[in-house]
């Protein structure tokens, strides 16, 4: 386990002692911090510090506003200004790590959606060989779009952490889903076939590389 995951686990356990009021504010702050160009480890360190401040304040009978003032976003920006920024290289590696894991997850979903487990596995057993899976232009486009949409929505959710309104966000989510559905249906031209083993290895490679990069960027 990386030290970031370890700290994250400790923070999760620790925050159970916070009241819903403090928890809500801390959650909003963490969501806001997530898209900042600072390492996940530093985000967790800040989360730990604020969590401890909040728990102390809760015991004294203070409110979150007593501890950090009324403008939570301004407080977060002031804190972020003092936390070391990621270099361009670290940001690229960080983005690549996240993208690879997302691609792996999408690969599994695509597998299930294509009926690989339900259709191709029995075929493989009956025919005694691994099948070739058809890939359409829509599959390729949706894969690219889904990664882009996930990144965009993640950023939108994070930036809107203190806005209180989730209507615009819902519109964006459903809009992205609609576009993906349409693209998947419209572009149904066959691009080629991928061997079952190649797809399986690709998905596994995405997870492994993503996790290796996660360890390399764990600071």
């Amino acid at each position, binding site marked *: 386990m990386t030290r970031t995951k370890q700290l994250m686990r400790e923070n999760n356990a620790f925050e159970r002692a916070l009241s819903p009021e403090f928890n809500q504010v801390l959650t909003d702050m963490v969501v806001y911090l997530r898209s900042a160009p600072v390492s996940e480890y530093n985000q967790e360190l800040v989360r730990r510090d604020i*969590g*401890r*401040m909040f*728990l*102390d304040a809760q015991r004294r009978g203070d409110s979150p506003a007593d*501890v950090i003032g009324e403008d939570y976003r301004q*407080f977060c920006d002031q804190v972020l200004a*003092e936390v*070391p920024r990621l270099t361009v290289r670290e940001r690229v590696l960080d983005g690549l790590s996240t993208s690879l894991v997302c691609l792996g997850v999408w690969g599994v979903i695509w597998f299930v959606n294509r009926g690989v487990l339900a259709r191709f596995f029995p075929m493989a057993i009956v025919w005694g060989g691994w099948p070739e899976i058809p890939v359409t232009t829509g599959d390729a486009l949706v894969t690219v779009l889904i990664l882009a949409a996930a990144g965009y929505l993640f950023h939108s959710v994070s930036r809107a952490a203190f806005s209180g309104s989730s209507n615009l966000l819902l519109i964006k989510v459903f809009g992205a889903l609609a576009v993906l559905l349409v693209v998947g249906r419209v572009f149904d031209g066959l691009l080629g076939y991928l061997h079952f083993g190649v797809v399986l290895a690709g998905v596994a490679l995405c997870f492994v590389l993503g996790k290796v990069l996660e360890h390399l960027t764990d600071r």
Partner: protein
Amino acid sequence: MIPSQLLKGTLEGCILAVIRKKPTYGYEIAQQLAAYGFGRIAEGTIYPLLLRLEKNGAVQAQLRPSELGPQRKYYALTERGREELAAFMGSYAELTQAVNRLLADTRKEESP
């Protein structure tokens, strides 16, 4: 109540002065500053400054157990912090002397 704009440039040095007495944590620093007449300063105002001081090597942080609840982050002055505090005290003395001279003149001119 001291206006926050006036306080801005001096708070970092004042925090170093509080920490110089003994290693302490955010809330206690706020309490100490209030006791010296700074008024109520939220812990959230102090925390980013402590992060900056830590980043610059002026203070060193350490988690210590607390009798009431979670571990607290205690800040202690480093050698660099002592130098920064000495520099702040020198600059602040210059500033107060200059302001005092100016205000004394202003008072003289205003008195009939």
